[in-house]
């Protein structure tokens, strides 16, 4: 494995001799410039099989010493690509002279999924992409300035006077008579099917959607700006509120990124507990998705069964930490606390009950004629899914066998026995089936891990991240100093950057973290799975009925906290 990896590495290095190449934290890194960007991307895609675009983000270097800026340029546009066969990730960094009016070529011809990521980079940093509109994506349309630049104050609010009006430009492809048949409707943001924070503007002919526009950002809570003002451990509660249906997974993703960056190996018990929490939260996330999706289609009974099961998992979380939803259970270097007495037995009991009751949900929906007819619509092909950057259940429902837990196993996913369900044609019904099966597999994992739970400490003993036991603090000077330094100065990873990904309930949850050696992260970019999925919505619902769009939306499982951050 390592030889193959290094072979791949060597090939990359040879091929991109003109650009500085490096390999760190399991990420390949290439520097290039705006002139060569497209040729580099083309070669990466065709020769090296980087077929999925994971993320595009901007970076503002102005608070770093000028000597560390690439070619003395303040802004960077950073791309993350994924090779799904070899499971390699590469980062392409492109310095952009924004003040000098430099424009970055758009990578839309290679990956459709670059769409919103490029808009976001303009919104947040003012980096322009060739041929792309300069539209606000996350902030509102009266917003002035680019909030993630270092010179924008985090608490500088700009109130909005009025929402934007629904508007479609005249469609040149149709005649005037046809144009008269069309009308505009506005769905959301306060609409039961859009779950409060999504807005769909549609141009319809009868019941059929001819054109549509999405407006997001109604829950843009500035996660990335907030992280820049908080200590590494203080970011954990913010990550809870990204995908709030499965908070522990976000905690784990964040902590894993920082641990990988600092080279900390967490104890076996912490790894096992994280797996248990991750799989339990995957179950409740899928339950809410299926239940809420069914409510949107008029099946009200299902959600009560789903919520009842979810309540049981919340009780487990409550026993563990006192909170139900926003748990903040992990810390950098391990878990926040030890399990209470009897928790494992309770958990195994709950797993049994849920496994039984999932079959009730299955009985309510899988062979329900109305449900199947309404959800077997709007298929998404595997090629489209990859081009848009789908991950997670939506990608697997399109028939692509990719799951980070299998392809690049972290923790003990290699040692447990579970299977990855695959769908056929990517309809909402396939996604539902994939989610149902994933829940069963997750419960299998939980049972296996709990039956073989390793003993030992729940936190790493690494002095850089974990407070020593009180006994040490009170009796020995070294312990006292360690405690003092951690409390006063916080966790401080060395200068560097990492992209670390975990398989969350919605797909690949990536954290791109840049550290300048200080107590706060210099820049954090979340790669939210449903952001990439939701940008395809316009294309997927084109020429579909409005009612089908609702089914599609429910099955995509868009969580606004994660979408808008």
């Amino acid at each position, binding site marked *: 494995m390592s030889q193959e990896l290094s072979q791949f590495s060597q090939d990359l290095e040879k091929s991109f001799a003109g650009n500085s190449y490096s390999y760190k934290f399991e990420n390949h890194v290439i520097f290039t410039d705006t002139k060569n960007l497209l040729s580099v991307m083309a070669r990466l895609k065709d020769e090296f099989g980087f077929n999925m675009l994971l993320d595009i983000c901007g970076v503002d270097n102005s608070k770093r010493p000028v000597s560390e800026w690439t070619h003395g340029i303040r802004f960077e546009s950073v791309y993350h690509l994924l090779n799904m066969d070899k499971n390699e990730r590469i980062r392409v960094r492109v310095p952009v002279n924004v003040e000098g009016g430099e424009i970055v070529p758009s990578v839309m011809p290679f990956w459709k999924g670059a769409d919103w990521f490029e808009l976001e980079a303009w919104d947040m940093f003012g980096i322009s992409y060739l041929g792309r509109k300069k539209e606000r994506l996350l902030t509102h349309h009266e917003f002035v300035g680019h909030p993630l630049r270092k010179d924008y104050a985090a608490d500088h609010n700009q109130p909005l006077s009025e929402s934007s009006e629904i508007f479609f430009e005249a469609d040149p492809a149709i005649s005037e008579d046809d144009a008269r048949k069309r009308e505009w409707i506005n769905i959301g943001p306060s609409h039961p099917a859009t779950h409060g924070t999504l807005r769909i503007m549609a141009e319809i002919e009868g019941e059929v959607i001819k054109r549509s526009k999405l407006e997001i950002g109604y*829950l843009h809570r500035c996660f990335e700006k907030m992280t820049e003002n908080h200590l590494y451990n203080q970011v954990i509660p913010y990550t809870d509120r990204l995908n709030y249906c499965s908070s522990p997974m976000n905690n784990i993703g964040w902590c894993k990124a920082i641990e990988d960056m600092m080279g900390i190996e967490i104890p076996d018990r912490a790894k096992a507990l994280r797996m248990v929490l991750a799989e339990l939260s995957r179950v409740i996330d899928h339950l809410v998705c299926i239940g809420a999706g069914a409510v949107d289609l008029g099946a009200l009974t299902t959600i009560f069964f789903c919520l009842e099961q979810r309540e049981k998992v919340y009780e487990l979380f409550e026993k563990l930490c006192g909170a139900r939803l926003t748990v903040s259970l992990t810390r950098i270097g391990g878990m926040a606390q030890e399990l209470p007495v009897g928790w494992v037995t309770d958990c195994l009991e709950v797993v049994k009950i849920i496994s039984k009751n999932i079959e009730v949900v299955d009985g309510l929906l899988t062979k329900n004629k109305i449900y199947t007819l309404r959800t077997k619509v709007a298929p998404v092909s595997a090629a489209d899914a990859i081009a848009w950057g789908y991950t997670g259940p939506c990608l697997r429902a399109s028939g692509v066998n990719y799951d980070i837990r299998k392809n690049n196993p972290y923790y003990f996913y290699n040692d447990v026995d579970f299977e990855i369900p695959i769908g056929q044609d990517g309809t909402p019904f396939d996604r539902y089936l994939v989610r149902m099966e994933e829940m069963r597999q997750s419960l299998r994992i939980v049972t296996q891990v709990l039956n073989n739970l390793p003993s030992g400490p729940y936190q790493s003993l690494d002095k850089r991240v974990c407070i020593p036991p009180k006994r040490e603090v009170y009796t020995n000077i070294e312990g006292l100093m360690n405690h003092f330094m951690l409390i006063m100065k916080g966790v401080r990873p060395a200068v560097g950057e990492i992209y670390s990904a975990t398989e969350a309930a919605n797909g690949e949850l990536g954290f791109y973290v840049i550290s300048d050696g200080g107590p706060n992260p210099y820049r954090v970019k979340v790669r939210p799975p449903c952001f990439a999925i939701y940008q395809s919505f316009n294309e997927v619902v084109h020429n579909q009925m409005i009612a089908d769009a609702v089914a599609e939306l429910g099955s995509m499982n868009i969580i606004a*906290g994660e979408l808008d951050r």
Partner: protein
Amino acid sequence: MSTNKRLVSALASRSEEDFALDRLVVTTKADSFLEWAKRWGQSNSLWPFPFGTACCAIEYMAVVGPKYDASRFGAEVVRFSPRQSDLMIIAGTITEKQAPVLRRIYDQMADPKWVIAMGACASSGGFYRAYHVVQGVSRDIPVDIYIPGCPPTPEAVLQGIMQIQDRIKKGVSAYGDSVVAAEAKAAKAAAMLKASSN
């Protein structure tokens, strides 16, 4: 509007005997008895509009779900049309982009109406001291009850609903107060205008 004026005036004329149904002898006027019966009915058949935007909305789902069951308080008929509801539950963070939507929906609700700000974000912006987050919805609309927590437990939300019921029985609402305040302000302005023209 007129209903609310009645509510406010009923509050002023309220006396202990008016509500003493638990005694055997009821001495009251038909008018105030009807007012009492109306408030009693209103307080036990709240139709909430869940303005759910974020994590609190997920917890609100638990409140109307099987275990906590808001229907025990008559508040389970969740309406997504502001025209049909009389209690707005703001569950989640309100951003600058969302604020005009919130204002418009609040204006669309028929009076009498009550508002619960559920959770830290709706009450004060919570730990998001950030450029795109409204620092408390009371900037935009009058709020009756603030429920602390991030998110609040379902028990806390139920207590909030019970406090709204109390407010209804007493005939108090933040909306009514805001109407009275607005009228007083208008009257004062008119008086000043008159004085200055004299």
